């Protein structure tokens, strides 16, 4: 029995140890020469294959679907349904483990989690993965170290110092707790101790803090787990712990910061933005938004929820900045809009500024010019890079009166060119962030009315879904030269076709929703998409967004973060990515058929 068979490779990691032994005992190994069929199309299948070495092509009648490499498992569908709709052909000298069908089916029957892998529906598989991930990420959060938490810097006062001195010191260092040195003893005094002494016990502000300090302190070490800090607080009923590295006190851990770490502090940032009184305050909050994405992702929060939270924070940020920078007349007579992914609420990690301004009517140009530059400049300082396509408030083409926009729309639709299609796509995704949102409403109504029935325009518009190939070809590189930096452009090959295809269908139907997710739901309601396909499409979309967030978080500065290196994914993720790209392929066919793109 091959002990070398990797049981940690999903889905086999879900087997209990006795089940794994049964599996290993049943394994054979088969060799296939280049070009040899491993499974014929519609041929009965007697085994589940796991690639040891070599490359296997998965084909349907239309051609190559995917390339499989070491540790990939096939064909789970055929195993359950007795025959495969796809053919599997060895591309080069290939060795595979063979799991007899009987053994695999017995394991599927006995182990529900293992069985889940073989379900046909991609959405079910994805849910399984999400659950696994949640457990893993929550675990990782509790396994973080105390040193990763926000700690208040230690500040010492003498026990003989007065309440008054302690109060001043707290204000100076912006902390609510101080260490108190009383000979050998070390204690902690808090702001609440001071207030209670003075207000409730009417003690003099000249009282030494020795009388109110708490010398019964509990310490943790910086390399202790967050979970043990939480346990200590609960056990000793403490709101704060001293952090001691074995030689000296290095900080104070407040309960609120610990809970903030576990719960995320989006609401804290939101409050900070709303209360901001200067651009400086906003800049601080803006920097914290970025950190939230990482934290939320680590907490296992679903990608669509992260996007929603981040979008909400960005909206607050821009709206607050708008209030600060815009002259009073502009605030009621214009509408600040966010476009592109920001407008769809799908931006997580900051990419660039995609914003504009719709004015009610012409405005005195000096004041406007000043505002344009100030607003875009401030966002740039907050860490929103300028838009390479110059779609931002500082560009007069994207900050002008409503009537000028309407004239643009008519021109775009009458004489459509590449730029016209892009502009329509951008403005159709726009969302009002500040000011008079009725202006955007009017613009969109006009846009939708102009396009209604313009089938030729819509067809040309939808054609962009074919601009990039589904990156099946790139899989080749990943498998044959694993780890050599081959990557796959998820944005072009997977995310864009879904976003744009859905946008085209939504525009045709005149939908007012901006998020891809909501547009898909509405298209299902209207019967444009089948409900079960809509569900797969949403799941595929979310899965790819999640991979993209991970890529962006991992990417060092300077890369776009839309490239995914399949060699770095787990084989389960690669499997799901293939499934997701299959859905993209199907969806393209649907859109192509819908708009009769075959004519071009």
């Amino acid at each position, binding site marked *: *029995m*091959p*002990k*070398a068979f990797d049981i940690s490779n999903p889905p086999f990691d879900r087997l209990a140890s006795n089940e794994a032994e049964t599996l290993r*005992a*049943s*394994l*054979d*190994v*088969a*060799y*296939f*020469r280049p070009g040899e069929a491993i499974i014929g199309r519609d041929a009965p299948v007697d085994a589940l294959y796991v690639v*040891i*070495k*070599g490359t296997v092509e998965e084909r349907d009648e239309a051609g190559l679907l995917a390339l499989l490499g*070491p540790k990939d498992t096939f064909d789970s569908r055929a195993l359950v349904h007795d025959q495969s709709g796809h053919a599997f052909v060895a591309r080069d*000298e290939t*060795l595979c483990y*063979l799991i*007899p069908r009987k053994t695999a089916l017995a394991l599927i029957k006995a182990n529900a989690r293992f069985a889940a892998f073989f379900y046909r529906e991609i959405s079910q598989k994805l849910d399984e993965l999400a659950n696994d991930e949640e457990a893993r990420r929550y675990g990782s959060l509790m396994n973080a170290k105390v040193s990763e938490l926000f700690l208040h810097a230690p500040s010492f006062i003498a026990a003989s110092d007065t309440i008054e001195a302690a109060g001043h010191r707290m204000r100076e260092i912006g902390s609510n707790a101080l260490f108190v040195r009383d000979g050998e003893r070390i204690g902690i005094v808090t702001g609440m101790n001071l207030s209670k002494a003075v207000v409730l016990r009417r003690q003099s502000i000249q009282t030494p803090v020795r009388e109110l300090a708490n010398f019964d302190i509990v310490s943790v070490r910086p390399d202790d787990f967050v979970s043990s800090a939480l346990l200590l607080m609960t056990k000793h009923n403490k709101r704060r712990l001293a952090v001691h590295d074995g030689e000296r006190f290095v900080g104070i851990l407040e309960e609120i910061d610990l809970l903030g770490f576990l719960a995320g502090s989006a609401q804290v940032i939101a409050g900070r933005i709303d209360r901001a009184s200067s651009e400086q305050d906003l800049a601080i909050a803006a920097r914290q938004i970025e950190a939230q994405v990482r934290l939320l992702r680590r907490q296992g929060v679903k990608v669509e929820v992260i996007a929603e939270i981040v979008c909400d924070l960005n909206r607050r940020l821009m709206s607050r900045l708008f209030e600060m920078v815009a002259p009073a007349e502009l605030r009621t007579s214009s509408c600040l809009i966010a476009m592109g992914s920001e407008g769809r609420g799908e931006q997580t990690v900051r990419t660039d500024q995609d914003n504009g301004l719709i004015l009610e009517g012409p405005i005195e140009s000096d004041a406007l010019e000043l505002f344009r530059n100030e607003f875009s400049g401030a966002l740039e300082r907050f860490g929103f890079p300028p838009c390479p396509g110059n779609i931002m408030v500082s560009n007069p083409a994207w900050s002008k009166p409503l009537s000028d926009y309407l004239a643009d729309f008519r021109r775009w639709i009458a004489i459509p060119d590449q730029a016209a299609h892009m502009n329509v796509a951008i403005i159709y995704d726009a969302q009002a962030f500040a000011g008079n949102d009725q202006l955007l409403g009017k613009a969109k109504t006009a846009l939708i009315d102009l396009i209604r029935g313009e089938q030729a325009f819509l067809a040309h518009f939808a054609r962009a879904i074919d601009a990039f190939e589904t990156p099946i070809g790139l899989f080749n590189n990943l498998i044959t030269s694993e780890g050599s930096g081959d990557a796959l452009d998820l944005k072009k090959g997977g995310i864009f076709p879904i976003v744009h295809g859905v946008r085209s269908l939504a525009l045709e139907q005149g939908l007012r929703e901006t998020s891809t997710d909501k547009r898909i739901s509405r298209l299902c309601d209207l019967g444009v998409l089948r409900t079960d396909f809509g569900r797969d499409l949403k799941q595929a979309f979310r899965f790819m967004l999640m991979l993209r967030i991970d890529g962006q978080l991992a990417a060092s500065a300077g890369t776009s973060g839309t490239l995914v290196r399949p060699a770095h994914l787990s084989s389960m993720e690669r499997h799901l990515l293939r499934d997701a790209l299959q859905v993209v392929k199907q969806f393209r066919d649907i859109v192509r058929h819908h708009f009769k793109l075959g004519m071009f």
Partner: protein
Amino acid sequence: MLPRVLKRLLHQATLSNQSFRFMFDRPPDDDVVVIDCETTGLNVRTDDVVTIAAIKIRGNRILTSEHFEAVVHPDSEMGAEAIKIHRLRQSDVEAAPIVWKVLPSFLRFIGARPLIGYYVDFDIAMLDKYILPLVGIELPNERIEISRLYYERKYGDAPPNTSIDLSFAAILRDLDIPALAQHDAFDDALMTAMMFVQLRDLAERGVRIARQRTSPVFNPTGA
């Protein structure tokens, strides 16, 4: 050819235990067996077999699910130490009876199939030490040497002075076979089996294994 045929006939005649006549049956078409022994050392006279593994190959299938694996010398390292210190070969007292218990089923497992191995002559010589007293003859099976199949595919047409590397690791590397845990008789046998099916296919298709060039190739593009 003749001496081998004669030897075979002689063996058949001298087979002391006639219940082992199957060793001379016609082997099933398409069937071969990979064998590998783990031993305490490389000296056939003084060293011992620790484990025996054998895996059948039928066509292009390596039948790991019906393999043979037996430990005949359970504590090899201590045994080797014991030889030096006590001048008494522990295996003489312990291992030999196990070998004789295991060998009949091993012989039935391999039957008359050709035996494949990496330096297979050594493994067979080790086994023959025990097989000869048991059945009165040495293993009559045809032998297939993996390093020779590899040599033919890679160096068969090599010019003189080509440096030749027939190491197990080199074969794995050239055939792109993942190294298993190794130096466990079963894993070695499995890797040898993987080598065999691929080398046999390469030979059938007349495909050669590329040799690294020793001198740099002139590249006109300068890249």
